[in-house]
């Protein structure tokens, strides 16, 4: 899970990394995904959760999830 577990995350979507001093903002969907990742859920499980939580088609959610995780990787967060 990389750095994810060390991050301080509040419900407004503000994320702070105490080790590097970096901060990030995420929107509601982003926060939802990050919380699931911290629970060690797989991408398939998260996708399932997204479809239950949000009014979104599987195609779009799947594409966005993959895209979001790549973005987290680019920040070195996962």
């Amino acid at each position, binding site marked *: 899970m990389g750095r994810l577990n060390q991050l301080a995350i509040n419900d407004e979507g503000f*994320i702070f990394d105490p080790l590097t001093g*970096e*901060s*990030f*903002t*995420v*929107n*509601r*969907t*982003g926060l*939802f*995904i*990050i919380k699931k990742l911290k629970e060690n859920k797989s991408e398939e499980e998260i996708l399932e959760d997204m479809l*239950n*939580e*949000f*009014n*979104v088609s599987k195609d*779009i*959610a799947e594409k*966005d*999830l*993959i*895209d*979001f995780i*790549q*973005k*987290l*990787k*680019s*920040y070195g*967060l996962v």
Partner: protein
Amino acid sequence: MKKIYEKPVITKVETGFMNKFGESPLYHRKIRKDIDGVSIEELVSRFGSPLFVISEKQLRNKYRTIYNAFASRYPNVQFGWSYKTNYLKAVCAVLHQEGALAEVVSGFEYEKARKLGIEGKDIIFNGPHKKLEDLEIAIREGAKIHIDHFDEILDVEKIAERLGKTVKVAIRLNMDAGIKPQWSRFGFNLETGQALDAVKRIAQSSWLILNGLHAHIGTFILDPNAYAKEVEKMVKFAYEVEDNFGFKIEYIDIGGGIPSKNKLKGTYLPPDISVPPIDDYAEKITEALYSNLRPGDFPKLILETGRAIVDEAEYLITTVFASKRLPDGRKAYICDAGVNLLFTAFWYKFNVEIDREVYGVNEPSVLYGPLCMNIDIIDDGILLPPLERGTRLIFSPVGAYNNTQWMQFIEYRPNVVMIMEDRTVEVVREKEDLTDIERRERLPEKLKLL
């Protein structure tokens, strides 16, 4: 009930979070739902995407604003429409209706102006490559010939002699007006005395009369003082010529170069701040005229303003075709228009507007065109909210140099429409198909596969 979905976004908070205008760059976006009251959706559903859209109203307004800035300060002003900037017939016709001459730089552009109904006497023929047959037609038809080099003096003289007709000509000058790089490859240099040599040679000819001076010191000139310098040098030279050779310089053509409200790559300030208002240019130029002209002398002032007139009157509507995540974390969008249609993307950073409200935080994004070419980038660093496939992006200003320097490369060129003053929409250049591209090709008999 399920919650409303918004694409997931994470953005790193940088120091200097707020920009200097006090709004969060994370939520700033520009929305445009119509052009001159015609909705983007209607335009695309009728004419397809990508789509160039020219506003007749904005074109005329811009011309009038710029023309009036000069005409209200000096009694003898004439504009020449620089064809190379945008030679779509509809654009040229609007500007000719407004009173502009045609300024052309090749036989092809000359032919275009004539075919549109412009008489030779209303055409300024510039450029370093006037082929003899083109030059002869222009001389016969009484065009204003602006001589670029010594070979051309001799060419014009020979043609004049053959036609048994004395010909009025102008010469193009180049000079140090403080602009870097100095455009020294066109015309005769002032400071080295080359221009004076050209005048001497013209004075020796019994077929040539010098009646005008021309210069064009560069393009996208952000300093109005450069024009003051140019005008001062041209007027002084005009009097030197008049006093020593007995010619009357009837007009001084100071060329183009006034910037449009576009953003040069690598500049920080928005164009509304970095580009001086047109009145500053008009003020400097006419001030320089009045302080150097002799009392009662008002030679015609010709301007060949190109981009400043047409750039802001045209938009390109594109559609987001796909998106991907780059290894460095940036979001990339593939649009249906790229550098094939937007030649000026190489030096401009366009204004990008979205056709709809989009939820979500902005993230650093890149806009690619459709070409299978690494250089096909329209914007390599723009903050955009997450965009759904099918979203339309509107680029502007794109009126200058794109409809002339676009390439038929890999893709067809799309429709160009003009929104008329009454809000009807006319196709002014129909989208291409295979017949346009292959009309000139010949397949040798033995290579035929069918």
